[in-house]
């Protein structure tokens, strides 16, 4: 662990990734402490200070009802990260299990599981998430559901391909010969050999999940006001460009920082763990 961190920090790009992610995570976790106006995350109105340009005490300016943008971005990070983690926590086990089963068991199991996966993959991801959100009420829970539904097939694909390769390895045959169960071979023999690739993809994806969730709320299909969300903040501010530029630029930059950070970290992990594209 310490060694991995040392390698990460040696490369300037991955060090930047670590720095950005650390900042984002700290901002999300300690939002209550850092935010100058914690109550601005909710339905607060302060018309005396509405639409203020960045300055003191409103570092990133205020929005159209006078709420501090900086505080709201901190809380929006909290929601974005929570959403990202939950989506991956559900999508990865589901996708990985299906991929392992299809890759190792083969035959009809493989055909059925992979064709179902292909159906999900054939629909453009954002369209799939949008149609699910269109059918359901736009809440945080449904948002996570929609993003999860479009996310698991990619893990199935990844693990399926890896498992197909591992299945031919001698140790799988050896395990079969000593009478290990199929579940044991799938989860205890093959899965550990796929972990580096899965881990790398998860790190990369955390950024993309945040991006997709923001896209959904940008379109008005995600988290609803007054809950702060980066995507809806950008959408709201876009109406007042270029005059009130801070309404769009700072939430947009916030998204950029998170996605960029996770990407750098993911790329670095891929190199360290020796995962091929």
């Amino acid at each position, binding site marked *: 662990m310490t060694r991995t961190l040392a390698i990460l920090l040696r490369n300037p790009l991955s060090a930047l990734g670590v720095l950005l992610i650390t900042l984002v995570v700290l901002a999300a976790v300690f939002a209550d402490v850092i935010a100058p106006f914690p109550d601005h995350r909710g339905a607060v109105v302060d018309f005396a200070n509405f639409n203020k340009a960045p300055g003191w005490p409103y570092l990133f300016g205020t929005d159209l009802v006078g709420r501090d943008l900086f505080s709201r971005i901190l809380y929006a990070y909290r929601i974005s990260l929570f959403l990202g983690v939950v989506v991956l926590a559900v999508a990865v086990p589901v996708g990985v299990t299906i991929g392992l089963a299809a890759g190792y068991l083969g*035959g009809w199991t493989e055909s059925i599981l992979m064709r179902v996966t292909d159906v999900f993959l054939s629909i453009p991801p954002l369209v799939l998430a949008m149609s699910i959100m269109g059918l359901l009420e736009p809440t945080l829970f449904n948002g996570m559901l929609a993003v999860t539904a479009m996310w698991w097939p990619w893990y199935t694909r990844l693990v399926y391909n890896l498992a197909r390769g591992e299945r031919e390895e*001698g140790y799988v*045959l*050896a395990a079969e*010969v*000593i009478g290990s169960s199929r579940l044991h071979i799938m989860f205890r023999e093959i899965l550990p050999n796929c972990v580096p690739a899965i881990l790398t993809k998860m790190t990369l994806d955390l950024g993309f999940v945040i991006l997709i969730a923001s896209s959904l709320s940008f379109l008005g299909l995600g988290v609803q006001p007054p809950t702060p969300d980066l995507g809806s903040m950008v959408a709201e501010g876009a109406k007042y460009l270029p005059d009130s530029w801070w309404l769009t630029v700072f939430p947009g930059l916030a998204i950029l920082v998170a996605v960029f950070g996770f990407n750098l970290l993911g790329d670095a992990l891929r190199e360290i763990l020796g995962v091929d594209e």
Partner: protein
Amino acid sequence: MSEPTLLIRDLHLSFRTYTGIIDVLHGISLHIAKGERVALVGESGSGKSVTARLIIGLLQMARGTRVDGLLQFEGRDLEKLSQSERHALRGTRMSMIFQDPTSSLNPVYTVGAQFHEVLRRSAPGIGKTQAMERATALLDEVLIPDPARVLASYPFQLSGGMNQRVMIAMALANEPSLLIADEPGTALDVTVQAQTLKLMRDVVTRHGTSVLFISHNLGVVREFADRVYVIYKGRLVEQARTDDLFDNPQHPYTQALMRAIPRITGGGIPDIEEASERFHEPLIVHESCGEPGGAR
């Protein structure tokens, strides 16, 4: 004579494919007595490995395979056993060694952890310290100098020869009565292969384990086996004690196989006539040359 460890009578195997039925084994009969080392020799595709997989019982589970004939292990008809009874034999009463020792071990676990796994097959409740003690003793037996270090290592940190020894020790960990060695050490270089084979011979002799040794390498077979079966295109064409077979091969195919060994003295790779008609003739059974009680 007591019950042979393995008795195969008139074993047929065919695969059903899209284009029709392909016959792979055309009635094989062989036996392995207790503690006997028997080699099965033949060229690629002659049916050596499928025979091994049939004995272990893995091939029967694959779709589209049809098996016919008697497979008897320690006096029990394997085809009459239930799935779970067969399962119980695997890894405990019979075990197997493969071509490439390094890929036969999972790279993400230490050798010790994999030993523990193997030992749990026969003693499900075995603890870590106990397993490590047993593993150390086993590794000692295959002359591994520093067992503790090897047990803490990952397979890719060890050399091929070391891994081969580990595989041998693992295969014998549960005191199987039958060890199937499918071209062991073919992936190793010749000197290491010779060393480990000698070692394997010593260890199985000490344990009284019966061995089915599958190989295409007659030189190796000569050093290792008590008795040899020659298999060609899914048929056993000759069976003899190792010395007799090498001194006086009877079947035209066996003779061709002998001639095919490249000589170190030069003269190039010998010319071998392509499969002649005579290869397919059944062996004329001389006294004690054919399989006793066999189909032909």
